[in-house]
């Protein structure tokens, strides 16, 4: 919820480290959009 923000994401700059076999960065970004944080770096890593 936008009004309930105990982590204080508002104004934060986010580094999103997704993983192909876990949660991809794009999914994390979608989940966190509209919470007032700006994604400054986002990557989906792949470890085989």
């Amino acid at each position, binding site marked *: 919820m936008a009004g309930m923000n105990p982590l204080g994401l508002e104004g934060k*700059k986010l580094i999103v*480290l997704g993983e192909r076999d876990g949660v*991809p960065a794009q999914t994390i970004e*979608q989940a966190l959009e509209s919470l007032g944080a700006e994604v*400054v770096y986002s990557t989906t890593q792949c470890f085989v």
Partner: protein
Amino acid sequence: MDLEVQGRIKELAESLGRANLMVVLGAPNVDSSLIQFETVTRGDPTYSGPLAGVELGLDTYHIFEPAMKAVIDAEKYEELLGTIELALEAETIVQALREARGAPAQ
């Protein structure tokens, strides 16, 4: 963690300031979650990348952690992450990160 990724994170911490940065992880298991957590908080544990010996101390959360879930709309969380969370060792990851921060084991 990829050396290029480490280098980028180091640059961002220097240019934007550590206090404003937050790292969100999507790692699939305990090992990779802990390595990434360590790398962006206490420095690269493998001593092979740009963050070796660099304690950035960044605020870091896995997307499965309760603190993150609390800020994401429940319906949206379920839609985007519900299935992935069930398929991975989510609870173990959450517990491992709690312990890595110094909280007592449950």
